[in-house]
């Protein structure tokens, strides 16, 4: 059995299946557990910094990934953006966002696992898994980018990793493209799929409940019991 097929051709599908089925199960059977599980009551001083920095970094990084992975080079070229210009902006903005996220993750990990606070008492196994994976994903993502684009000659992931990523959704995974990418990227994506698989079972489900409806809702809710 070829490991690259398992990691880049099979694992993503397992992770996606777990992600989808896991969310359906959790939504239907565990509304009671569907929450941010806020820990601000137990620890506030660090959270005031860590959480906004982390979330800002995370939202920027998610937007960056959407752009980098889903928009093919032909599309940016059609808009008249040259490859070098795109590359400059993507690496510059990407690294900045990645660093913000990294600071956020480090602060949250320090807060939750290193400092001897009340948080240890409300930390669940799911938190350990999510933070371990998040640290790996962020660390290797930054490392890969630094090694290839800041220190190295530049690596055009848009011709390889992005194509592989999209190919997964066409159900024709181009495993070779990912197998030939630098190894730091390989670790990054493998751990990222693991994070996707862990998602529905962790507090990360709170992301889907981001309260945008609040902006248009009347202030006072009247209703009867369910």
């Amino acid at each position, binding site marked *: 059995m070829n490991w690259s097929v398992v990691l880049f051709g099979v694992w993503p599908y397992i992770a996606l299946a777990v992600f989808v089925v896991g969310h359906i199960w959790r939504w*239907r059977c565990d509304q*009671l557990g569907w*929450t*941010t599980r806020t820990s*601000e009551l137990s620890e506030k001083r660090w959270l005031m910094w860590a959480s906004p920095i982390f979330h800002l970094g995370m939202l920027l990084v998610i937007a960056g990934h959407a752009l980098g992975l889903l928009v093919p080079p032909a599309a940016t070229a059609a808009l008249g953006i040259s490859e070098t210009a795109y590359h400059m902006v993507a690496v510059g903005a990407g690294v900045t966002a990645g660093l913000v996220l990294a600071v956020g993750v480090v602060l949250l990990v320090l807060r939750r696992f290193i400092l001897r606070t009340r948080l240890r008492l*409300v930390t669940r196994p799911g938190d350990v898994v999510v933070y371990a994976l998040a640290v790996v994903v962020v660390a290797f993502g930054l490392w890969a980018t630094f090694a290839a684009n800041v220190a190295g000659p530049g690596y055009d992931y848009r011709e390889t990793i992005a194509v592989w990523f999209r190919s997964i959704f066409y159900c024709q995974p181009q495993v070779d493209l990912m197998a030939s990418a630098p190894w730091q990227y390989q670790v990054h994506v493998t751990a990222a799929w693991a994070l996707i698989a862990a998602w529905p079972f962790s507090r990360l489900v709170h992301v889907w409940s981001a309260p945008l409806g609040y902006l248009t809702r009347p202030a006072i809710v*009247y209703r009867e019991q*369910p």
Partner: protein
Amino acid sequence: MRVMAQVGMVLNLDKCIGCATCSVTCKQTWTNRDGVEYVWFNNVETKPGIGYPKRWEDQSAWRGGWRVDANGRLRLASGGKLKRLSRIFANPDLPTLDDYYDPATYDFDTLLTAPAGDRMPVARPISAITGQPMRLTWGPNWDDDLGGSGRYAADDPDMAAVRDQVRMSFEQTFMFHLPRLCEHCLNPACVASCPSGAMYKRASDGIVLVDQNKCRGWRMCVSACPYKKVYINRLSGKAEKCTFCFPRIEQGVPTVCAETCVGRLRYIGLLLYDADAVGEAAASPGDLVEAQRSVFLDPNDPAVVAQARRDGIGEDWIAAAQASPVWALAMRHKVALPLHPEYRTLPMIWYIPPLSPVLDATSAMGGDSADADDVFHAVANLRIPLEYLAALFADGDADLVAGVLMKLSAMRSHMRCLTTGRVASDDWATRVGSTAEELESLYRLLAVAKMSERYVIPPAHREDAAELAGWTTGCPLDQVAVGRP
């Protein structure tokens, strides 16, 4: 006019002995669980004192409740929707465990397992949260009965309203207990602040609840409630609050805190109100107690009754509103006042301000505390505790509180004349703008009313009760399986 019904409560503070039975029975019933060790849906504070959580009344720090902006519009004190959503990742106004207290239990095992010996074994305090031995340095009523108030009471935010020269002498002057629970407000800031719409006001009786299946742990309600009566469950990360014992209320039975109250000082009943008038009353530029009273509808007014019927309120509920002790005390006799009306949530737990501080002061001044003339004199001349009570119950309107205290005092003198057979030297009732019958009915309600008069609670209309009884927190898939949506 849109008539709605609201359950409310009145507490007669003169009778509260601060025993905290209400707090304990409430805790045993509702928050005797992991994750809510620090939570007291009902707690009893000593006033003056800083309360639980510490200095909860200081809204310049917590930004709870509502305020009126420059254009006269009602806004949550914590800011507009966008501003609050921008702070969702970390809520700067949220109290932490340190603001409440580190709940303790005791190492009772030591008492049972200690070997025979010369020394008495001691059960040491251990943190209910960490399980580790701890030092007790604070608690939800640490300053109970003015204990340590030399240090703490000056920090009471309500003291700011009392003028300096009298502030120094309050320790000799007065003290009373203030039992607190969720106010089940007509204009609840917690509900308005909940990003997921998990908090709601029951349309039938106005009880404010958190839907545990919809709460997502954004914890905005905790800081928005000016009374700090929504709490985070430490373990589940969801909001929990006083339920007004709704399963009991639905059966026509009083709340646990009321039923177990040693002083029998709590009253529960319905008020009918005009839902369309709530917004305007909450935004009223001044006279907040009067504004709040203006939303309630006289249940004996035929026009109100007719509209209530049209709005789907049942006959038994209308009859209960007519017999309501809350209506009698807050609206007819006007002796009950809302707690901190300036928070503009239109709170529905009303308080009869304590006369006892004034009586103590009357005696201290050499007057006869049983003689209403002397008491009137004291009320008129003693700025504390009047200003202090006014800061709590009347948005600073000392005259309003004075009126209530004079009425209570007049009622006592009137009854004294009656029972001692002395000829009344004066007509107490007219001096406080009332009548003898009114004072006697007030006396009856305050002094001798039986349970059936103190708690007038119509059972819920649960025509579909059988179906609702089957509702559980189980997996909804099960319900699909038995053909429920």
